[in-house]
């Protein structure tokens, strides 16, 4: 079973490397959205410092949502998904592997570039770790929750807008706790409590979301 999962992850990563522009688009979207906020609210450093955690988190959330469409779409189009549904590997495990691969391609780059963006917002350097760590724990949870939405909207017309309508309300707790972690790190409270909660959310989503997404995939490809 582990071999099959490794195969799924390897295949998805290979596909992403061959089509690297898809990966870069999401990353650029993240950077551009975050850069638009200073243009909108003005260059006052105190204000930017105050809104930095929220802006970076919302931008990361939107970027990772933008990438969700691709999670199952190409496999659905070329019939690979049907083979996965029929295969001997439990579908929940396959979905978990796909989500992991998807996060490595679309979530991890966001996490890695976020400290640079935070510096643009005059974010205190000693709190950068907390922000990066909150994104590192939060974005996989976003990918997991998003997988349910992506599976439900597979092959529907207007899937993109519909997907955001389904997924964004469910993202609210992750956003609140994630941005809260960075914020309390800045205010000197330390973000440990929020980071622990984020970890709990990630474990919870990791346990149940692949299973729910697998059920949704079976419904979508009936």
């Amino acid at each position, binding site marked *: 079973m582990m071999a099959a999962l490794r195969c799924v992850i390897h295949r998805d990563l290979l596909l992403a490397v061959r089509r690297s522009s898809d990966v870069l688009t999401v990353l650029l979207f993240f950077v551009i959205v975050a850069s638009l906020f200073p243009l909108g609210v003005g260059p006052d450093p105190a204000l930017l410092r105050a809104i930095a955690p929220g802006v970076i988190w919302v931008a990361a959330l939107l970027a990772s949502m933008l990438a969700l469409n691709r999670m199952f779409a190409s496999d659905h189009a070329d019939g690979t998904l049907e083979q996965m549904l029929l295969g001997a590997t439990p579908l929940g495990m396959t979905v978990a592997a796909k989500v992991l691969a998807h996060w490595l391609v679309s979530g991890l780059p966001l996490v890695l570039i976020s400290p640079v963006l935070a510096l643009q917002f005059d974010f205190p350097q000693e709190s950068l770790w907390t922000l990066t760590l909150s994104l590192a724990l939060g974005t996989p949870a976003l990918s997991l929750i998003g997988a*349910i939405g992506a599976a*439900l*909207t597979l092959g*529907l*017309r*207007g*899937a993109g807008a*519909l997907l955001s*309508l*389904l997924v*964004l*309300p*469910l993202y*609210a*707790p992750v956003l*609140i*706790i994630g941005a*809260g972690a960075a*914020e*309390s790190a800045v205010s000197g409270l330390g973000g440990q409590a929020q980071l622990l909660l984020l970890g709990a*959310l990630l474990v919870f989503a990791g346990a*149940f979301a692949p299973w*729910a997404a697998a*059920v*949704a995939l079976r*419904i*979508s490809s*009936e």
Partner: protein
Amino acid sequence: MSVNWFKYSSPQTFFPLAGKLAFWFGALAFLACAAGLYIGFFRAPTDAQQGEAYRIIFIHVPAAWMSMFLYIVMAFWAGLGLAFNTRLSGMMASALAPTGALFTFLALWTGSLWGKPTWGTWWVWDARLTSELILLFLYFGFMALQAAIDDPRRADKAGAVLALVGVVNIPIIYFSVKWWNTLHQGASVSLTRAPTMAATMLAGMIVMALGFWFYSIALALMRARCIMLERERASEWAVEYARGSA
């Protein structure tokens, strides 16, 4: 005596029953709402602190109760449909969603009408308001997903998965929002009402809640009847019914 639990699980037998039930629950809803409004507007005393503006709670509180309760009922039917693959359960779930969304919207709207004279603002990012708003988005998501899928069986099942995921998430959303709120700002607005509530106020609220409850049942059954007719339009009983009523 053995009871046939599944007698009313087929649209053909449920359709006439739903019609009768809808009528009676509708009548009860009308009576209860009339009585509740009478108690609320003519019997309940004026509040010492909030004046007459408080009277909107006779709509607001029951609507908020129903908005949350209906989501759970919807998820219950959705789960039942997913587990037992019964046709009617999915129809009930999609029949309940618009009523739930209506009550959520009513709760938000009356809340802001109440907030302006009492708090001096239409909207605060209070935990309850925010989670109610997210609940409204969840209802919209459910309805949008069902509307986007042409095949009714797939729409039922996909909606069921979403409703169940939502119902698991509602407590998480509520607590995270509550916690976020207390983290951000002190309690500038206290939602706790006067600790002792006059008995007539409570009575009015409970009668109104019963009225809303009956209204939801009646409306859901009426909508379920429409969905049944639409989906079973090829079957004999539906054709017969349409011919009879034409």
